[in-house]
């Protein structure tokens, strides 16, 4: 099963075996426990819930504590459900980095860094105006569109709250999977601040192209 939960540790670079110098994000992933098995009969869909991260006993709400107790597993800080690649995975089983190999393609889901109330230049890559030559429009959004329309077009891009969105980076290469230290090294950046929860799952795009070939 190529799904796992982890904590973003930060970025660095590594030398690969073929001598490339690759920028990577380090994810401390797993070991996760299978916390629940959802079934079609009982819940209407098939899924596996993975739990990750230690939590102090007094921080577990009673409701959740009861849930964990019913399943007969240790309480974990995070729980996420997965619907793909879950055949033969039972409650209590442990999911580790060992399922991943270098060269695998994964999608990484995280909550992006918050930027607060951001202007158009940062939020939508607006160009902005001249800084000099008497321009009084420096970082403003300038025109808001057609005056003839008499109204603002729906969905027009404006300054506003930016970040803290669920964001997925697709088709990232696994550079290294270290099962001794539970580390996943993924090529390139991934969403979110350090220490944030990230979800790693096998790449959707890769799976599709493999299907098309077969």
């Amino acid at each position, binding site marked *: 099963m190529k799904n796992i939960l982890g904590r973003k*540790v930060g970025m*660095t670079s*590594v*030398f690969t075996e073929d*001598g490339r110098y690759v920028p990577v994000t380090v994810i*401390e992933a797993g070991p996760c426990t299978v916390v629940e098995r959802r079934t079609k009969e009982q819940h209407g869909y098939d899924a596996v819930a993975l739990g990750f991260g230690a939590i102090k006993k007094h921080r577990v709400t009673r409701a959740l504590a009861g849930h964990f107790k019913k399943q007969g597993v240790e309480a974990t800080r995070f729980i996420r459900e997965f619907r793909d690649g879950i055949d033969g995975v039972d409650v209590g089983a442990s999911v580790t980095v060992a399922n991943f190999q270098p060269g695998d393609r994964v999608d990484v889901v995280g909550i992006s860094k918050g930027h607060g109330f951001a202007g158009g230049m940062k939020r939508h890559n607006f160009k902005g105006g001249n800084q000099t030559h008497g321009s009084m429009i420096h970082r403003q959004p300038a025109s808001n569109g057609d005056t003839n329309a008499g109204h603002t077009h729906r969905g027009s891009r404006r300054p506003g709250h930016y970040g803290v969105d669920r964001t997925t980076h697709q088709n990232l290469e696994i550079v290294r999977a270290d099962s001794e230290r539970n*580390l996943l090294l993924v090529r390139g950046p991934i969403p979110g601040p350090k220490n944030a929860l990230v979800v790693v799952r096998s790449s959707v795009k890769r799976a599709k192209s493999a299907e098309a070939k077969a």
Partner: protein
Amino acid sequence: MNVIDTLEREQLKPTVPDMRSGDTVKVFSKVVEGGKERTQMFEGVVTARKSGGLGECIVVRRVAHGVGVEKTFLLHSPRVEKIEISKRGIVRRSRLYYLSDLVGKAARIKERKTAR
């Protein structure tokens, strides 16, 4: 120790020659050519030594067939096998970018004979 520091430290080479800008070095690097691996030598003047840690690198300049060639080598790369210092030079700056404007006799660097 923090995970990233550990990862970086594991990949550092234990020692790296103490060349500086102005020194002439021979760099032996592995090249993959037609599916085969061989060692290639590149000799020239170190024009810059940049960055630190895992990304530390040197820029080596030589004039080959009348054309100036500058190559950047990552000092800690497993592809860089060996670096030999063949000559020490006396220079007064750390980045010898001015060398690319000079040709022939003007581009020479005085040799440092005594230990620093």
